[in-house]
């Protein structure tokens, strides 16, 4: 009986109160839309990244190559297929790279590959670039000078779909010949320039085998012809690698990483070995780029999605606020009815149940609509992502997991129920007499005893957090000691402790003193503690130890700041409204408005508070994001000139400069323009993605105990060689004033580094410490302790972010050798965030007569300061290339070692894998140029253009001097580089702002709902207003003003909070605060606009209702 009648009442309420239900469903739908949208975008983004990486691997799971370097042969196929089980297909491939010139375009390193025509269908297909149809490559690759071009290279070479084929491509191959010199046979190498014919262009974005070739494709036999030229014996039986496919549709069906890893590990176990020089070496090396990519993507996404989810969570709070508000209004304007129901005998439980049923229905509908909204939202964001990452539309498809569908409806129901619970409870508690008299139900002024128990519990939780510092956790100091304020972890507990304790106290006190006073105390502490931390503690440099999660602190602080400020304003709303009234009442023509609008706001305290709270939360986030970006950009530009240490542009040559008897590239540059004041030449090297023998080892490859695994413990980093004169110039050591290129270091070697990180250190002190670090770097006798830090992509510690955090190494043990003495190695510096200070690495030098890499251990002795853009002409890779270029070594950064080690390696002699000649000491490939112009002067770009013209023009300038048309220079001004990276930063924030702005939409909808409701339920009052002489415009203005005031309160809270958070961050980073007035203005206009729109229409309608009709309106 009870249940059925509840359902009946709920059903009636649902069908009768259409607009009111609509607003509840809309509110829930928006909340769910947001959640689903966030889920879909993160999934999509992850998939887009992964696909754009994996697409390069086509359908390949594992590659087999020669374990000792060199080539495999046709005979290896049988051995390999005997090792592999469950494979779908196996295929040979010969891959290398060389320079290429198409028309006037030159590319210093183009990947070239030869593949057989009869490769298995499991590897996928080639498709025409223009038509998209499947291509039969055997019809084109009939001779060894016929090639196919990938669409990605075609785009780089300014070739489009309508360019007429064939086109000629010029390249170079090495020819080695055995020559008899005396009685000895000597191998003499020379280059031959070859013209190839591009017969067709294939689509390298189409998933499948075509996608794995980004350069030029030959027939296998054709390419073997060319490669065999390197071998004096002209052996044509050469295969670079055998590719294994375990499945055929990597892009449409899920890939089982665990299974692949299992198979990979199993294969490693059974790889055959042979003895070389009494050493056991593997006959085959295997690698799986797929596994590597997946690991890296996981790493990036754990960071990224946790950030998005936190942001999303905060915005969802606004959704919950909106829903609660709507539900609360439903109860309020139905109190009379509820009173009647109760009077005619409905029980409390019945009322409660019928309300809950109603919200259940709303939840289901809201969930379904929200799912639809989320799909659209996801689609829109996915489209935006395409424009942001430009990774091809094929790779950015919204990913909708089944779980998301279930999840969204479930969340809708839960949201509906949860937010309906409080109003339902309130409805069931309605005082019949008061409800019938039309008295608005007010909460009891003093809290009940039950409530006080919760207060006491909260207080205990708070005290627990507070005494964690110094008490439970002895590493932290008590709050009453000054040292108890200097550490982020301590602050985390202080924030949580104060928050809980004073929330509890507020609840308890509200039993004895007035609610307003009690909660004012809570509000002030909640808001004040984080603000104190941001402004005072960070402003005065009290916080010196930044260990701990700054993200966690930020989130806690933002939540407390928002709750505190909303509570404070909400509690004092009547007071604020009184001030507003007394101000407005002085204005002629607004006196009536002044009398009613503020009074209306304070008479609906909860509703009003929830309304401005929505904006307060969203705008706090918005302003935080906007002002952080503004501060960042401003400080980046401001500091870049200082941090670039005088370097204005850098030049990258496609090959090392020629060793000329009378001049050098540097010399020629000076001649070009008199404003060039200094040219610092450097040697750099980037290993190709296929030659893992040049990768950095993160475990000792020679120590059987270390468990070295080439698949997991090699990192594709770039290298740079530095000489004392390049950095110190004429100066001998740190004491000398005039350094040529002194820049900020972040992590410093033992002895130079202070034992605790001193964030208060001045620029000068930091620079001096950095110089001392360089003295160690160039000191041939200096060695640094290797610490027991291991690196594994699989269990990479995100929270420490490798080299990103300043390290003290206090609690890390040094590595000891068998005799128990501390192991020490020479040091290298790095700009890679992956390499922590103190970690040993092994760099492959090639002094072995067998051509195997010989690994030399080093300790990571320091890192460039990426925050301060320290040394960033050097550490430029991250900024230029990003993830889309696919050059991992570029992305992961470089290792720099002193010149004296160059004797052990011919890395720096190599332009590509084909010419391992030694370079002369002054044969550079990278140049940093200082000019007499200021950092952002356009004259620098002119010089850059001049340099490129000088180097890249056919048959003139530098090419004439060296008589080589294959030399290409790229000159980039640091300022343009900075602009590019700022643009990237702006793109990333605009992506974040999609989420944040969604909160604004929720706020706008909230306003509209409240406005419509206000007018609907106040018809009587409006009639009365008209009857006693309110002109129409004042009725309308009153409705408008109410909304505007709430919107502006939200905006005000948001702006103040956002700026305070920003002040904290600027203090922490020691940069001046920048207030994004433009953005704040935009929000102001937005709120004004929405307020006008949402308020004006219902207000106008209201003012038109004939007073007599309005007066008859009840409930």
């Amino acid at each position: 009986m009870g249940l059925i009648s509840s359902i009946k009442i709920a059903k009636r309420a649902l069908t009768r109160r259409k607009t009111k239900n609509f607003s509840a469903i809309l509110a829930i739908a928006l909340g769910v839309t947001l959640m689903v949208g966030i889920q879909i975008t993160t999934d999509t983004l992850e998939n887009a990244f992964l696909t754009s990486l994996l697409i390069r691997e086509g359908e390949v799971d594992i590659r087999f190559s020669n374990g000792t370097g060199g080539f495999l042969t046709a005979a290896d196929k049988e051995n390999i297929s005997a090792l592999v089980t469950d494979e779908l297909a196996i295929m040979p491939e010969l891959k290398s790279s060389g320079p290429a010139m198409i028309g006037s375009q030159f590319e210093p390193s183009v990947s070239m590959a030869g593949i057989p025509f009869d490769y298995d269908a499991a590897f996928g297909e080639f498709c025409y670039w223009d038509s998209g149809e499947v291509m039969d490559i055997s019809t084109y690759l009939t001779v060894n000078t016929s090639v196919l071009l990938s669409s990605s290279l075609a785009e780089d070479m300014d070739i489009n779909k309508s360019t007429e084929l064939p086109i000629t491509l010029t390249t170079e191959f090495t020819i080695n010949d055995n020559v008899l010199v005396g009685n000895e046979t000597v191998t003499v190498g020379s280059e031959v320039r070859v013209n190839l014919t591009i017969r067709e262009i294939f689509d390298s974005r189409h998933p499948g085998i075509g996608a794995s070739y980004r350069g030029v494709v030959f027939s296998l036999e054709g390419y073997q012809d060319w490669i065999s030229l390197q071998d004096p014996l002209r052996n044509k039986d050469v295969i670079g690698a055998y590719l294994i496919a375990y499945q055929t549709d990597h892009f449409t069906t899920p890939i089982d990483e665990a299974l692949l890893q299992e198979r990979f590990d199993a294969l490693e176990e059974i790889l055959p070995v042979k003895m070389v020089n009494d050493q056991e070496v593997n006959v085959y090396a295997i690698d799986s780029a797929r596994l590597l990519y997946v690991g890296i993507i996981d790493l990036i996404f754990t960071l990224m999605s946790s950030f998005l989810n936190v942001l999303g969570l905060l915005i969802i709070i606004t959704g919950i606020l909106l829903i609660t508000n709507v539900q609360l209004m439903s109860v309020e304007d139905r109190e009379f009815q509820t009173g009647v129901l109760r009077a005619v005998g409905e029980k409390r439980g019945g009322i409660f149940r019928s309300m809950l049923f109603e919200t259940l229905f709303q939840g289901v509908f809201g969930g379904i609509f929200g799912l639809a909204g989320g799909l659209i939202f996801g689609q829109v964001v996915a489209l935006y992502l395409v424009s942001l990452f430009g990774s091809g539309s094929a790779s950015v498809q919204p990913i909708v997991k089944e779980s998301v569908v279930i999840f969204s409806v479930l969340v809708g129901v839960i949201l509906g129920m949860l937010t309906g619970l409080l109003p339902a409870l309130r409805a069931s508690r309605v005082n019949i007499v008061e409800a019938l008299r039309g008295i608005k139900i007010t909460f009891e002024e003093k809290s009940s005893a039950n409530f006080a128990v919760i207060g006491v519990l909260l207080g205990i939780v708070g005290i627990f957090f507070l005494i964690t510092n110094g008490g439970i956790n002895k590493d932290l100091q008590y709050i009453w000691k000054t040292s108890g304020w200097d550490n982020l972890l301590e602050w985390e507990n202080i924030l949580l402790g104060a928050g809980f304790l004073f929330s509890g106290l507020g609840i308890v006190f509200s039993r004895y003193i007035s609610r307003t006073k009690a909660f004012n105390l809570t509000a002030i502490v909640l808001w004040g503690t984080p603000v104190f931390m941001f402004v005072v503690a960070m402003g005065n440099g009290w916080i010196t130890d930044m260990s701990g999660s700054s993200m966690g602190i930020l989130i806690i602080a933002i939540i407390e700041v928002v709750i505190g400020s909303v509570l404070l304003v909400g509690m004092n709303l009547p007071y604020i409204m009184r001030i507003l009234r007394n101000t407005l009442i002085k204005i002629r023509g607004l006196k009536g408005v002044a009398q009613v609008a503020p009074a209306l706001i304070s008479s609906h305290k909860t509703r009003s508070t929830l309304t401005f709270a929505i904006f307060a939360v969203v705008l706090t986030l918005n302003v935080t994001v906007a002002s952080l970006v503004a501060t960042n950009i401003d400080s980046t530009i401001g500091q870049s000139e200082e941090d670039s240490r005088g370097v204005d542009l850098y030049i990258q040559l496609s090959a090392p400069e020629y060793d000329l008897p009378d001049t050098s590239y540097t010399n020629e540059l000076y001649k070009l323009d008199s404003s060039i004041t200094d040219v610092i030449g450097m040697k750099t090297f980037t290993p190709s993605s296929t030659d893992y023998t040049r990768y950095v080892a993160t475990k000792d490859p020679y120590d059987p105990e270390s468990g070295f695994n080439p698949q997991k413990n090699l990192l594709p980093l770039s290298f740079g060689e530095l000489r004392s004169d390049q950095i110190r110039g004429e100066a001998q050591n740190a004491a000398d004033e005039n350094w040529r290129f002194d820049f900020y270091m972040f992590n410093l070697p033992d002895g130079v580094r202070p034992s605790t990180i001193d964030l208060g250190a001045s620029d000068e002190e930091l620079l001096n410490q950095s110089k001392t670090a360089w003295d160690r770097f160039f000191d041939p006798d200096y060695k640094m302790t290797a610490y027991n830090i291991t690196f594994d992509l699989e269990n990479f510690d995100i929270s420490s972010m490798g080299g990103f955090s300043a390290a003290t190494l206090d609690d890390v043990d040094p590595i000891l050798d068998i005799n128990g003495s501390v192991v020490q190695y020479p040091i290298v510096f790095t700009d890679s965030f992956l390499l922590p200070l103190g970690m040993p690495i092994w760099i492959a030098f090639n002094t072995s007569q067998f051509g195997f890499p010989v690994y030399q251990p080093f300790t990571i002795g320091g890192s460039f300061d990426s925050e301060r853009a320290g040394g960033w002409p050097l550490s430029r890779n991250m900024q230029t290339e990003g993830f889309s270029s696919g050059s991992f070594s570029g992305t992961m950064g470089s290792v720099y070692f002193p010149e004296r080690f160059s004797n052990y390696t011919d890395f720096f002699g190599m332009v590509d894998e084909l010419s391992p000649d030694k370079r002369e000491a002054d044969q550079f490939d990278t140049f940093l140029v200082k000019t007499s112009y200021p950092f952002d002067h356009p004259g620098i770009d002119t010089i850059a253009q001049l340099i490129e013209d000088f180097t890249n023009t056919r048959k003139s300038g530098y090419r004439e001097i060296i008589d080589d048309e294959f030399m290409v220079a790229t000159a980039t001004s640091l300022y343009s580089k900075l602009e590019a990276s700022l643009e990237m930063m702006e793109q990333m924030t605009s992506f974040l702002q999609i989420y944040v702005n969604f909160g604004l939409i929720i706020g706008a909808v909230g306003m509209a709902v409240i406005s419509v409701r206000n007018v609907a339920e106040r018809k009587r009052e409006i009639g009365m207003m008209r009857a006693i002489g309110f002109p129409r415009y004042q009725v309308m203005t009153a409705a408008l003003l109410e909304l505007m005031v709430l919107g502006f309160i939200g905006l005000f809270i948001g702006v103040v909070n956002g700026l305070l958070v920003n002040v904290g961050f600027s203090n922490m980073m020691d940069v001046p605060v920048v207030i994004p007035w433009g953005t704040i203005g935009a929000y102001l206009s937005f709120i004004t606009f929405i307020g006008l729109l949402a308020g004006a229409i219902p207000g106008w309608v209201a003012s038109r209702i004939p007073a007599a009709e309005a007066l008859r309106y009840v409930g």
Partner: protein
Amino acid sequence: MSQNEAIKMETPQMSQPNESENILLIKGLHKRYNEGKSNEVHALRGIDLEVKKGAMMAIMGPSGCGKTTLLNMIGHLDQNSGGEIHISTIDANKLSDGKMTAFRRDNIGFIFQLFNLFPFLSAVENVETPLLLKGYNSGVAREQAKMLLRDLGMGDRLYHNPLELSGGQQQRVAVARALITDPAIILGDEPTGDLDSTTSAEVMTLFRRINKLNNQTFVLVTHNRWIAEKCDYIVHMIDGKISNVEMGPFEEDK
């Protein structure tokens, strides 16, 4: 605003008092609700009425006969469906909404049948609002509202919300709000409906006093014969028409 704009109990607000002057003239007034629809209600079916300045008139009639409708028409809270209403020679039908609102504010005081007051304003705020709408300085408005409320015996309830007041107290606040602008006509829809007989008598005595002092016109709807007899004459309505007019003075009133 100056002090002499305080309620002028002695001098009438409009043109010179003239016993024979009609302050309200209604000719052939009709009102149809939901005009043209199937649920059309012909609430007023041709009302002709003259009310002299300073008169105190009662309207009586069964429930649903159109009393409230007639009051709303007089106060121009709603559009009529035919006929004329002149208030002190002004045909309010010809005024714009803005002018009509100002005219109503300055010349007509309302006391409604149900829920009279703004629930979110205190007693004194309710009363001062019409003065604020006239553009009075808020201090002056507050003082006048207080004075009037004290006059009506509400001096100790100035800052209470309507919901904290008894029905009679609420009604007195509503009366104060209707009187504060010193209007020429006061329209009361069962102004004593919720009150006990003693309080009702008090309110009626108050009305009579104001009526005498200020020469303000009262049009009061009531179901209570005893209340009606406190007025100068009684207009009886049945079915949207005036059935007869009973002239006073009534015996009991003497």
